[in-house]
């Protein structure tokens, strides 16, 4: 059975990811949990950016909804089920994304970027102002949860994260990826891409531009919340800095690094960014500078990101074979 390149990449990637805990030291495996969180959030982000053409500078707020949602569910409400927390976070983000998105998607380009930045910072200031509930600067604690009803009490946190939870996150990523794949290859996905390329013509072909954009916004928010739950759980803390506008900028960075024109780009971007940041941090105290330079390089020279380079490489390889 001949597999498409995408299927090959997905299967290959899954196998490699599944094998990692068996070959890598626990430190690196631990690094991978935030990767899963960001990867899922970025799949959602890229629906909005790569497929719908809307650049949000406030997307981190939905990661915040996920993390704080987890804190509320476990800390305040005492729920222990990860699945329930995920559901709650997804529902909360959808509820918030509906009015915010409704207001924002009437605009595109810079105005959309500024509006989303403003909403993101508004959320950030809410987290500080209501510090009695949210813990302000210190954040809110996210307690340990059961996955699939199992507590894995024998494992300490590090073992848990590098073992059962790792595979749980891998499964979540696969599910998220599958959902997103079907979304972008559906009739709805086609309408998104059409309105991205030429909103006016799309209208004349019967595309409900605003409604489609809003739907993409809400879906991306839901994915962001899932990512936020994973991130919050990993650290054990929901931190207001997760929501600052520079964090939203970091999300954009990851998407562009991996290549926002490709389905797998965001996932590659999440992985590359996390590994890059980790390596740089151990090499120099001025890792932000290097990251900034990398971003500038990508924007100027490789706008299609890593996946673009990979695709080009493959194309050239294919071309030299007679």
């Amino acid at each position, binding site marked *: 059975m001949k597999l498409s390149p995408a299927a090959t990449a997905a299967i290959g990637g899954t196998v490699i990811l599944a094998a990692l805990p068996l070959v890598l030291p626990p430190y690196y495996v631990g690094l991978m949990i935030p990767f899963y969180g960001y990867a899922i959030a970025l799949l959602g982000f890229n629906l909005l950016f790569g497929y719908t053409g809307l650049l949000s500078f406030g997307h981190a707020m939905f990661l915040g909804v996920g993390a704080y949602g987890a804190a509320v569910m476990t800390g305040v409400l005492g729920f222990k089920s990860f699945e329930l927390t995920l559901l709650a976070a997804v529902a909360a983000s959808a509820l918030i994304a509906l009015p915010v998105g409704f207001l924002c998607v009437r605009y595109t380009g810079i*105005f959309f970027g500024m509006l989303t930045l403003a909403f993101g910072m508004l959320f950030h200031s809410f987290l500080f102002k209501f510090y009695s509930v949210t813990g302000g600067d210190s954040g809110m604690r996210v307690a340990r949860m059961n996955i699939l009803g199992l507590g894995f009490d024998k494992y300490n946190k590090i073992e848990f994260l590098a073992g059962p939870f790792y595979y749980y996150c891998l499964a979540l990523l696969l599910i998220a990826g599958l959902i997103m794949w079907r979304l972008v290859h559906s009739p709805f996905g086609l309408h998104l891409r059409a309105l991205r390329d030429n909103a006016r013509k799309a209208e004349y072909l019967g595309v409900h531009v605003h409604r489609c954009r809003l739907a993409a916004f809400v879906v991306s928010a839901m994915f962001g919340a899932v990512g936020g739950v994973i991130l919050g759980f990993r650290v054990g803390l929901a931190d207001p800095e997760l929501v600052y506008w520079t964090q939203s900028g970091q999300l954009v960075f990851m998407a562009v690094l991996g290549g926002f024109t490709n389905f797998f780009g965001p996932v590659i971007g999440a992985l590359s960014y996390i590994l890059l940041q980790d390596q740089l941090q151990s090499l120099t105290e001025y890792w932000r500078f290097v990251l900034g330079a990398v971003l500038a390089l990508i924007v100027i020279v490789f706008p299609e990101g890593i996946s673009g380079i990979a695709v080009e490489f493959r194309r050239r390889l294919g071309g030299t074979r007679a």
Partner: protein
Amino acid sequence: MSAFANILAGGVFHAAVLFLVAAGLQLVFGVQKIVNLACGSFYALGAYFGVTFLTYAHQAGVSDWLILPELIVAGILLGFIGPPLERMLRTVYDRDESFQLLLTFAMVLMFQDVFKFVWGANPRSLDSAYLVYGTIRAGDFSIPVYNLLVILAAIGVAAGLGAFLQRTNYGRILRATAENRGMAEALGVDVRRIYATVFTLGAVLGTTAGALVVPTAAASLDMAVEFVVEAFAVVVIGGLGSMRGALAGALIVGLIRALSIVFFPEVEVLAIYMIVIGVLLLRPAGLFGKAAA
């Protein structure tokens, strides 16, 4: 009552500084259609350099009376960063807006570590040498003369920029290029030179504003990223690309901040975001801007 007046005076001072940065933003957006996320970094750069410049000047025995002009000079000296940064931005002019935003974001990241490298992670401040100018008092109301001078300087810049843009030939060329780049090019305008000049001017406005602020506030790493949001608020409220908008927006943001500290302390920063959102939704062109996307 005088407490109120003091707070208002603080608000106007803040507005003066905001105006300078916003004017720079507006110029760059108006002519080049670039939204510069690194405006806060220029501001911080001016602040840090201002501290260093003044410290050396003081050690070299320069009179404290010259603090104000020294800071202005410090700001202007930093203009040298304009051309190389503009050169970098030039590569993405013709591409999607997202790339411009991203490139300026890359600059923000790089600047953060430049600050850390040169000046360290701790905030830097001056002693209260600026009080050499004295303070004006009227009952319980007091305002340092320095602050007044800065406010006057900002007004001067506003008037100067206005006259420059409206009355001089170069100003007309700038406005023409802003209006229609292709047309300007066709008429023989060296658009590249204009872009480099405008960007540098915008940078200088930002760095000078930062320099002018250091006597009253410390230069810190957070400055760069926090200021961006306020500067954007000013520009959005006033209307993208409009100088009058920069003035009006700066006053509104400066005063609202001052007032909400007094009356609604919980709401302080929230108030500004809500107004930004409100403006973007109800009147996206802002007070003085042209029709929005």
